[in-house]
């Protein structure tokens, strides 16, 4: 029998790999601001990437080679070698759907916990409400049972889901009598609506995004990114475990980014308005989007700029107008809608929802305990002002600048608002996840930390099993990326996270501080996010100063 043999690529290109690896780090950092790519660099990059899969041990951890030592990456290489490129996205979608469905077999938010239940009941109730009431009453319903406080697109989607569900079983969404209704079939139906929405909006958006973002790069890279993004644990746990429709809003944002990448700015802004119309949390992104479009317009010459701004303005006004059309007849009605969506205007603690949030929001508890909320708020207002100033910086009009801008603005918002819900970390996590292969170490650890901060919530809902599996799987999947990233810090984070989990499992908290672990979790999360915030701001700031990175790489690549 012959000795173990491996693919030709692994053997023959071995000699090349040691020389080419040196360039890889630079290549990934490079982004040509004009969007034009140096073809030779890309080709070079393609080879480097495919080599690194089989020779991952060659370089001692400091180069990009080792971070492509991903099981996912090897799987993508295998797919490419086996002529599976065409069906690969479908397989990826099937795998991601399988994982999501397995998670959705578990319990959901507020399952069998009367009297108020949880997010699941809220969504179910909105389907009931939109199905049985005319649109003009949706936001003025005074039943004090999970008021509809999301923008109209959510209401429309709820109406569709309610309509279809009503055809299957009228009991699920019967007016008033279905409050707190729970059955296996109803759960199944609700879970299906989430998955279908995800498939239609989020999955498609991510497939197109990887297609456009990695347009000139090796196919395997593109596919690796697709799988990693689709298997991001935080979103799966919240949407398919806890029960929400975040992926719709996030998917619409990704669609907007997709359009911006193709310079279809009007279409992009329509998508962004739709995202805003689905969940007001998309506002976290709005400074970045605004700055990006403004920066781009400013480069069109005087009349070009005016014309572009008019087009964009019209697109925004018409989209929002269409979404809010049913309530535009009187000032009173539209104000009522706005008040519902932004409870801030009515004072934070008058609203029932806000109260529920207060009750279950450990972050708020933490702050009350330490009595520093005013201080935190003040400092963060300052920070955000600074951040927005930076976002308006000229650099933002590059495609990479756009993603960093999205990260910075959403992360600032997340750190700023004191009524923040831990789930909101999914919003900054989205653009960071999209950069998974551009900032592998940072992005993967950020996602880990973000998922970790949601642990108290998931624990409450008995979703610890999928939490551990998905988070562990994510850490393992991206492990190759962590190896080269400032190991002491990464190690410290890993030790603290796993230490906290171990302690929580085996050691009861002292009677005096029953929420000790949740508090530690939140503290740890806040500290970590602040560090990431600083890092991403630094990145955005320095990016503008090195516009010639692309050129540099070409030179080194040629030398190599």
């Amino acid at each position: 029998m012959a000795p173990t043999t491996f693919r030709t690529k692994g053997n023959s290109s071995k000699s090349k790999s040691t020389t080419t690896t040196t360039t890889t780090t630079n290549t990934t950092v490079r982004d040509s601001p004009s969007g034009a790519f140096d073809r030779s660099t890309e080709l070079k990059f393609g080879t480097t990437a495919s080599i690194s899969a089989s020779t991952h041990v060659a370089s001692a951890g400091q180069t990009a080679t080792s971070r492509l030592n991903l099981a996912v990456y090897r799987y993508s290489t295998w797919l490419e070698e086996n002529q599976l490129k065409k069906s690969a996205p479908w397989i990826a979608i099937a795998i991601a759907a399988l994982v999501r469905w397995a998670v959705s077999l578990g319990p959901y938010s507020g399952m069998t916990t009367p009297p108020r239940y949880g997010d699941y009941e809220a969504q179910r109730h909105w389907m009931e409400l939109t199905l049985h009431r005319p649109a003009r009453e949706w936001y003025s319903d005074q039943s004090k049972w999970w008021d509809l406080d999301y923008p109209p697109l959510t209401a429309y989607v709820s109406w569709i889901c309610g309509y279809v569900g009503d055809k299957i079983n009228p009991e699920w969404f019967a007016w008033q009598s279905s409050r707190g209704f729970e059955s296996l079939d109803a759960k199944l139906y609700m879970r299906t609506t989430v998955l279908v929405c995800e498939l239609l909006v989020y999955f498609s958006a991510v497939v197109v995004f990887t297609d456009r973002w990695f347009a000139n790069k090796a196919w395997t890279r593109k596919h690796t990114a697709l799988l990693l993004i689709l298997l991001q644990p935080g979103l799966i746990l919240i949407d398919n475990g806890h029960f929400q429709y975040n992926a719709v809003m996030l998917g619409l944002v990704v669609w907007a980014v997709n359009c911006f990448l193709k310079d279809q700015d009007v279409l992009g802004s329509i998508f962004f308005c739709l995202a805003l119309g689905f969940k007001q949390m998309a506002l976290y992104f709005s400074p970045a989007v605004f700055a990006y479009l403004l920066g781009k317009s400013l480069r069109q010459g005087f009349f070009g700029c005016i014309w572009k701004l008019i087009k964009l303005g019209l697109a925004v006004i018409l989209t929002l107008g269409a979404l809010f059309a049913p309530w535009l007849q009187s000032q009173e009605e539209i104000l009522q809608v706005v008040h519902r969506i932004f409870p801030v205007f009515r004072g934070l603690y008058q609203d029932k929802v806000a109260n529920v949030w207060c009750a279950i929001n450990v972050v708020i508890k933490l702050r009350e305990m330490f009595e520093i909320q005013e201080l935190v708020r003040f400092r963060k207002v300052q920070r955000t002002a600074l951040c927005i100033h930076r976002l308006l910086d000229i650099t933002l009009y590059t495609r990479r600048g756009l993603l960093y801008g999205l990260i910075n603005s959403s992360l600032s918002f997340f750190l700023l608002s004191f009524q923040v819900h831990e789930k909101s970390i999914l919003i900054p996590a989205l653009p960071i996840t999209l950069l998974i292969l551009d900032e592998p170490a940072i992005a993967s650890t950020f996602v880990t930390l973000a998922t970790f901060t949601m642990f108290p919530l998931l624990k409450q809902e008995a979703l610890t099993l999928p939490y551990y599996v998905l988070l562990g799987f994510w850490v393992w999947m991206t492990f190759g990326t962590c190896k080269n990233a400032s190991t002491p810090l990464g190690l410290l984070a890993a030790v603290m996270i796993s230490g906290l989990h171990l302690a929580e499992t085996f050691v009861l908290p002292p009677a005096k501080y029953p929420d000790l672990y949740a508090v530690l979790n939140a503290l740890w999360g806040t500290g970590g996010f602040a560090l990431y915030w600083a890092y991403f701001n630094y990145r955005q700031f320095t990016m503008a100063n090195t516009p010639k990175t692309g050129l540099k790489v070409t030179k080194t690549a040629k030398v190599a």
Partner: protein
Amino acid sequence: MASSYIPATSSQINHQAERGMQISLLVISTALKVLLFPTYHSTDFEVHRNWLAITYSLPISQWYLEKTSEWTLDYPPFFAWFEKLLSLFAAHIDPKIVQVDNLNYDTMATVYFQRTTVIISELVLFWALQRMLTVMGNRPLQKIISWSLMLNPGLLMVDNMHFQYNGFLYGILIHSLVDAKQGKLLRSGILFAALLNFKHIFLYIAPSYFAFLLRAYCFENSGNSIRARSWTSAFRPLHFLALGISVIAVFVASLGPFVAMNQLPQLAGRLFPFKRGLCHSYWAANFWALYSFMDRIMIILISKSPLGQYVNLSLDTSALSATTRGLVGDTAFGVLPTITAQHTLILTVLLQIPSLISVFRKPTFERFIGSVVLSAFASFLAGWHVHEKAILLCTVTMSVAIANRFGASFNSGSGASSDQKGLVLTPRDVRSFMIVSLAGYIGLWPLFFTRPETPIKVLITAIWFVIVGTGLDQCIPKGSSWSMEAGPSSTRSLLRHFTALERLYVLGCVPVQLYVNVGHEAVFGQDTLAFLPLMITSVYSAVGVVYGWLLYSAAYFSSSTALDKKKMR
């Protein structure tokens, strides 16, 4: 085998990459299995919980007598000991698990515990696959098989959802087969004897083991067939004694205590309940499914058509309603003659004999593994009261048979040299394997009649089919003289080697299963004609399994007779 020069550093790197790949396999399969914890578990879960309780709380003398639960212990003693081992841990997790009268106890901790034991026990399968890789060559083909078995939809469905310990048992079987491949025949035989004492379903393939070990181990094996007069001189009494004594020792260790307690008849009655009918309540995809289906068709034809008045047949119309979900009992036939246990036994033996003769004439590992596959098929297709889960025996052994082949080598271009002719992976192998697997695993779907599990069973089967199908397809060596049947490789699709009819069958699964899983309930509602979807699935699967068996038999006998003729010349 032609091999190119490999630099030392590169092979080191490859070695590390291989190890990384196997760790990946372990991580991925474990993560998926844990994620499947909350899925539906069948009564088999309670069966095994009850066995934990019996073996923990009762003395050995009571193990096969205890009948508080209807799920009495009906596996051989080694498996009971295995349960005893698990129960020691179970008692620490929750003492209520091991109480005999604590029926239908399935708290979350219990489920998590028992599901974890399945995952841990399947490390035996993982270990066996690692050995398979080192012995049969760690090439793309073998790697695909190891991934295919570790992430097998059949095993995932039966073990990690439905709840059984098959992965563990098939791990032992693969260990035994790998030993046979290595020429460690005595160990192979002992392992198989032990396996029989874990689960007696492996009796299905015992004839092949018997023929192979007798001929290969107990007779001089000179490579040529032995002439009649030299049989006695070729006999190796020491080997015969060694094998005989060790196998008997295994059985004594297992059954001895029960013989001593005079419980053997009781034990046999538990293990072989012949009171059950020809078919399980849901027909396994075998001959009898087709037979019963034909019977139903004929009843309808005769009773509905005017012909019925002239044909003087006493119709047993009760047969029509007898096969509905949940009714376990004798299968009645309306028109066709009734089948008895003796009939099935004779048919099974008849189907097994040709391959056994072939093994006995030339006891190579290739023939042995082929014969194991054919024995498994014979028992599955013609056996008495066969469970649909027994298809795993066919697909797992087929996987090992394929792993034993030479695939396309990516190094030298041609892959295998000419003396490995006949051992090379052919399109026919892949076709029969993929069709039997697909049909068999779809035949397992009715185990999960609960709706939440539908997407899972569909997705794992579909993903497996596409990835493994394409992977194997790419391993078929191309463009050489011995792959005449490879056909034009202009299309690169997964089904390019399949004939039109086979493609129709594979693609036909989609509309058929759409009807079974969604359409039927939408058209007829939940309760009318409830047996119809089950019957459709079972008949459709049976067609695929029988077809794949014919294809496999044709390949086996054509290659072995060709070699025989060559030797004669």
